[in-house]
């Protein structure tokens, strides 16, 4: 995503909930993205940019503008279907895209638009894919997501739900796959996130500045070392980052074999009932996230401890909201967890 070395993921001090949520999103895309809310200077964007540098590469159809998965024929774009009618497609390894959606992006850059060069020079109507196309099978990151302009939010909500980007404008008619994990971060003091968009995020994480002096010193020390020598510092953490990368890979392979016993399902349902979350999305996310957490653990079944680990992230944004009382929703989830799962 960026030319300069990113801060190493492994070097982030504390913020375990945020790191776990990001790893879960990297293991199981169906969990449905992560939104990170918190004070300024707590390493929200650092963590996401660090994750980008950490992700193992993926296989993609050669020459495909949307990086279609060779193994998943159903999700192919029209170009790939036409090109590889039969037989195995030519594939190559590409980096998992982590696309930054800058706040100043224009709508045509997000959804794709007329290829200006060909339009202006040759008068042709050709489609040039936008950021959503680039983000296919990867991550779409929006920093300060609560400041995103409404018309872009509308667009994202629609595409995130359907997994497909449909462009019907300026005389173009294009549809292409756009399945991405949405990652947002922001500061709640700067504006509320639209409830519809908030609902699109599987996990919601709150970060705080560490309150103990030792971690704060460590944060500043590491950041300072990084700023003084970016490349060298990233190198010194390369091994630790490599361990996390292997953990992600192992968890992905392991994920389909993780079983969810009935008692865990019952606990999850009880938890959601105790909190009065609307709809089944909460339970589903809770289950999926717990399974990914178990896979990251190397466990073969989902237990109460996995539920406990991710309950707050999966449920706190699904409670009836009260913007003045943000800490309250976390506390409510914690209380329900204690009630249902025992202390």
């Amino acid at each position, binding site marked *: 995503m*960026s*030319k*300069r070395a990113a801060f190493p993921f492994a070097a982030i001090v504390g913020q375990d909930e945020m790191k776990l949520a990001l790893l879960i999103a990297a293991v199981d895309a169906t969990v449905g993205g992560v939104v990170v809310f918190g*004070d*300024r*200077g*707590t*390493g929200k*964007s650092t963590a996401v940019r660090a994750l980008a540098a950490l992700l193992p590469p993926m296989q993609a159809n050669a020459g495909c503008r949307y990086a279609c998965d060779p193994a998943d024929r159903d999700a192919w774009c029209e170009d790939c279907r036409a090109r590889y009618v039969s037989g195995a497609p030519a594939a190559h390894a590409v980096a998992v895209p982590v696309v*930054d*959606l*800058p*706040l*100043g*992006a*224009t*709508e*045509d*850059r*997000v959804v794709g*638009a*007329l*290829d*200006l*060069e060909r*339009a*202006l*020079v040759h*008068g042709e109507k050709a489609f*040039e894919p936008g*950021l959503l196309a*680039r983000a296919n099978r990867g991550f779409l990151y929006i*920093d*300060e997501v609560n*400041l995103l*302009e*409404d*018309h872009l939010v509308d667009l994202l909500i629609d595409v995130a739900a359907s997994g497909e980007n449909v462009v019907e404008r*300026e*005389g173009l008619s294009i549809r292409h796959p756009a399945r991405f994990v949405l990652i947002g971060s922001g*500061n709640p*003091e*700067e*504006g*509320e996130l*639209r409830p519809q968009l908030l609902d699109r995020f599987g996990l919601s994480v709150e970060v705080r*500045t*560490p309150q103990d*002096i030792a971690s*704060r*010193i460590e*944060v*500043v020390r590491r*950041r*300072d070392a990084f700023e*003084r020598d970016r490349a060298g510092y990233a190198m010194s953490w390369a091994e630790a980052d490599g361990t996390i990368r292997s953990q992600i890979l192992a968890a992905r392979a392991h994920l389909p074999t993780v079983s969810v016993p009935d008692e865990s399902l019952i606990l999850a349902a009880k938890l959601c009932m105790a909190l009065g979350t609307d709809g089944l999305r909460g339970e589903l996310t809770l289950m999926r996230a717990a399974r990914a957490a178990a896979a990251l653990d190397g466990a073969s079944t989902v237990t109460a401890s996995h539920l406990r680990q991710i309950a707050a992230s999966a449920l706190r944004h699904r409670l009836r909201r*009260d*913007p*003045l*009382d943000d800490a309250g929703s976390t506390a409510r989830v914690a209380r329900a967890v204690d009630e249902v799962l025992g202390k």
Partner: protein
Amino acid sequence: MTDPAPAADPGPWADALLAAAVFAVMPAQMGVALRAPAGAVRDIWLAAVRACLPATDPWRRVPLGIADSRLLGGLDLAATLRAGKPVAERGVLAEADGGVAVLAMAERLPAATAGKLAAVLDTGEVPVARDGLYHIDAARIGVIALDEGIGPDEQVPASLRDRLGFLLDLTGIAPAQATPPEPRNVAAARTMLAQVSASDAILSALCGTALALGVESARAPLFALHAARAIAALDGRDAVSQADAAAAARLVLAPRATRLPSAEPPPEQPAEEPPPPPPEGEDAEKPEPPTDQQLEDMLLEAAQAAIPQGLLAQLAAEGLKPRGRADGRIGTPVNNGARGRPAGVRAGEPRGGQRLSVLDTLRAAAPWQAIRRRDGAAAGRLAIRKSDFRVIHRKQNTETTTIFVVDASGSSALNRLAEAKGAVELLLAECYVRRDRVAVLAFRGKTADLLLPPTRSLVRAKRSLAALPGGGGTPLAAGLDAAAALADAVRRRGGSPGLVILTDGRANVARDGAGGRARAEADALAAAKLVRAAGFTGVLIDTSPRPQQAGQDIARAMGARYIPLPYANATMLTQAVRAATASP
């Protein structure tokens, strides 16, 4: 660097110059929010910074209303048409790479622009994803945000302020005879900086000081560390001394303090015995180093001495002010063509955020092709002239929606529900004249109901009111919640909501529908605060027989005007409401 003014205190102007020198040493790491009215003092300070920077480094001024295409870069249309292929135009931030960007009137910067700047400061890069381009420009810039704000609510947006090392306030400071930083000194410090080391004791003392002053952001101690290093480098030393750290704490941490250290009350008047030992050099290396705790206390004292008087009072007052506005601008931007819903295509250049409509431009150019070719345009290529440009115009809906929130509970019915209805009808007529939209919410029993979604139909509004029965409890919290949600929806659609709440303020049903006056009132107050946090304007009309404390409390909590329903004087009521809702 001493000053004739009080005792051995380095003085605010000397401090400002020290900050200027530190910024010049490491512009990309520090950044400055400079609060000062336009005038000589600010100019002298800026000149001092500029004199210290290498003359070849770019220095760009960023005007307030800058279009994103100019700020971040975009398509250079004229060059594109000439070259026949997309030509990118670098934005101001990319142009300022390696130098300084000066933001004019940063206190009025919209939050979205501040967000973009914050991302650039974080990464040192400008991602350009606009107008058919995608590339990354380097932009390691030092930012000086000029803040001409007067009150505490006019400030550089918080997301940006947090990423700036110095929060300097030059208001009311006269430049004393302090010597400006020596450019050669700064140049030497720049090369020296990499070798300057800071001990763990210094690092932990800075972090501890930040914690004690209630500075949450982890960026602040990092800025302080940078500053301490730069101060040492400016002095030609390769290790950070206590005095350096104290100066850094004073410059960086003190302006960010949100509380005074709670552990111990300030033992002595800071003015009597200024803690940072001002003489440089000989005092730097003390024979026996103090313990970590002593060091931290020293930094704390240094910072504390620099905290302006009355800060605590200011902080206490801030708790009562409406929060949640991240940008300095007040009011809704009016129809400016660049924001809102597309509303047709018109001729004009894509400036100020307006988007070029390519097809319409091509369409406009098409008929002229033969003529232009005859006049000398190259064959085989579309000849497009400025006059062909079509931009998509956008229109923002800023009409007012007045939301009536009517208390239809038993107590209210007993009191003056009928009168309240009459007053609302008068107000409705008023709204009708102004072509406002109206919505009616009523709360009684356990819930609030939307009787009438926003509409222009006066008839429907009247009918919904007439059919409104009275009776049941007073779920004031639910009513206010519903009103806030509706107002929020109106605002999201681009309208400006105004709330008119008619109640006797005697809440007796809590949010969850349970009875009990105490909880109901607490919930109602919380809901009212929520309304204020969202920044909605409103009026509360007290319908109780006599003006009640409860109603006034609610009105105060929601930042609304309080009006007791006058007897038999509906005209006065409409006037009062108009005055309160017309000007937010």
